[in-house]
């Protein structure tokens, strides 16, 4: 039984980390209807940046975080302006392809600038586990979960309480109506990419610590697809819940099913779950159902 609790807690905590990356994804989709295949690569970019900066002697942690966040926000602006702005109005598939191309560019760029080796991302968190009753909890997972939660709550508040956030939701809902009301849509687009960059920064720090800053971080982006589909492509709350569910299911399935089938269930169980849910709710649990007219 305690094994199950172990797996469950571990899974939930990792799930929150997934949710953090998923939020960046959902943000861009919500505002611009673009699936950003390069989100994982943005996380990787941020992870490398964080690792390199921490490697510089004498750079305090808070300064690194600040510079990284500002840098990623700037990167988001630049990407939106340089690459996505010319593609406005083009068929959706082309835009998706551009983000795939962007992911190659980021991968090559990271290796050129910072070398291809894996880098360590040291955070001042001890490795030895806390023992809470029968359960071992590792501090880094807790810290990561806390950071993720803080970001998610901050995003939630931003979208419901602040003017800019409400403007973004308006653009996501109906672009033309938003323009009529006087909201600058292009600014909202830029902002959504910038905030996605911010989410990538947080994700990069956390995941970079867990996995080491390497090109494999971009694969976290792949992991995140079932999360957003499960929760609904345009729902932030859905991303959070989806992440939790997926993390838990993955962990428990791997722990209990793997020995019988020789391993590897972690890969496809999330997708099987996702398909089953999609049969019942074709737009994800909290997704916005598109009404089609002839």
């Amino acid at each position, binding site marked *: 039984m*305690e*094994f199950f609790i*172990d*797996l469950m807690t*571990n*899974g939930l905590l*990792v799930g929150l980390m997934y949710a953090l990356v998923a939020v960046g994804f959902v943000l861009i989709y919500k505002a611009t209807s673009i699936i950003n295949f390069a989100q994982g690569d943005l996380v990787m970019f941020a992870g490398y940046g964080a690792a390199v900066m921490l490697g510089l002697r004498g750079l305090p942690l808070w300064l690194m975080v600040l510079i990284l966040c500002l840098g990623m926000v700037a990167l988001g602006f630049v990407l939106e302006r340089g690459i996505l702005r010319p593609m406005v109005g083009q068929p959706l598939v082309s835009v998706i392809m551009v983000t795939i191309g962007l992911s190659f560019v980021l*991968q*090559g760029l990271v*290796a050129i600038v910072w*070398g*291809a*080796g*894996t*880098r*360590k991302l*040291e955070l001042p968190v001890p*490795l*030895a*586990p806390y023992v809470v009753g029968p359960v*071992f909890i*590792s501090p*880094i997972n807790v810290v990561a979960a806390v950071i993720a939660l803080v970001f998610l709550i901050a995003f939630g508040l931003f979208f419901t309480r602040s003017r800019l956030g409400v403007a973004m939701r308006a653009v996501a809902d109906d672009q033309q109506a938003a323009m009529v009301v006087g909201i600058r849509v292009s600014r909202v687009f830029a902002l959504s990419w910038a905030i996605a960059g911010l989410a990538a920064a947080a994700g990069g720090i956390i995941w970079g610590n*867990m*996995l*080491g800053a*390497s*090109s*494999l971080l971009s*694969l976290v982006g792949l992991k995140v697809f079932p999360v957003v589909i499960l929760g609904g492509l345009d729902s932030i709350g859905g991303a959070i819940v989806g992440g939790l569910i997926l993390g838990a299911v*993955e*962990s*428990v399935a*791997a*722990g209990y099913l*793997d*020995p019988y089938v*020789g*391993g*590897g269930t*972690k*890969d496809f169980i999330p997708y099987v779950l996702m398909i089953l849910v999609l049969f019942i709710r074709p737009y994800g649990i909290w997704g916005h159902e598109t009404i089609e007219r002839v």
Partner: protein
Amino acid sequence: MRLRRWMVGCLVLACVIGVGSMVPAVADEIVMGGQCDRTGPTKPVGIQICPGVLDYVKLVNKQGGVKGHTLRYIEVEHGYKVDRGVEAYERLKRDGAVALLDYGTPIVYALTPRHMEDKLPGLTPGFGRADSTDGERYPYIFPMAASYWSQIGAAMQYLKDKGGAKKGTKIAYLFYDNPAGREPLAIFNRICEMEGYECRDFAVPAPGVEMASQVLDITRRMRADWVVGHLFGNAPSVSIKELKKNGFPLDKVLSLVWGAGEEDMKTAGWDTAQGYLGMQFAGVGRDFPVIQDIIKMYQAENQEVPEHVGWVYYNRGVLIAALMVEGVRLAIEREGLPVTGEKVKKGFESIKDFTLGGFLPPLTVVPEDHEGGGWVRLYQTKGEKIVPFTDWFRGYREIVLEEVKKAAKAEEKK
């Protein structure tokens, strides 16, 4: 529109230059080749092995080449993709290579029929297919260093002799869930059954960075006494951290050859990885004559010696190049010029007691045994270095050879 014209122009230019680059080999030069993965999933390893190979070839050329002939080593990047590996092979063949490094187990599998057809020898030290030990079945594939089967045999032997394993000891096998990772499984299970250990295996799905549940199982549910790891790429460092997170003593963790490099320790953190045991098939460190020569070469050119000189994977690159050069040298000695793939194959098969100044265990290759004995050595992480822990040894050799024979028979039956 202008952008379009620019792009078409660039493309045409690239194609023209590409076509024009088909350069024939200079006479009197001996060409060798290999693929490299500097951008794909094994790039932490590739970015050290490939410079190792190139540096050694440069060293040999500086020292006068092989019997007066300069060597040319052509490296082709393939990103660990099979179709690019095949294209690389054809390109190297066209450019006149007489020996090839096949980088990556799936590429070795894909290229084996071509090696046989074209009579070009291919080297696969420390990876590749274990059944290519049988040189009579695969005359043109040369592992020349402990295959995965020999590695697991040696690991189990160490556990029995020095690790205190006896009947009932719990051993966990943590491996990367792909064919290379699964190759030792049969022998692992066989030895476990033979010795009465309680064994379980844990697959880590690609890309090998999520193993929290597996490690939880190993440390909390199974409560293993020993962990034998067969991970590579980014997985070893993650495994070190995960095991440490769950309080498992790292000096009871033994990794096969591709999970034991300085990069892995550095990424996990040297202080985290203390006591970790790793298996090597080449010497580690700068304390060898050949590495010292390479360092002198860098200094003679007033260049900074790269950090990775002397590291685990770099040294393996040097080993690969040294083996190729030795094969070519013996080919020229015994068979004479011009050098062809077939002659180099015979050259490889006449390698005897080759140690390169203590860099490797005495390697003797014969047509029946392309592996050269399957010797390995254990090193341990202490401080910020990897230091020798045992001497050269091997284990369960009879079982390994039996499996090789079984595999050969199974192939013939088909």
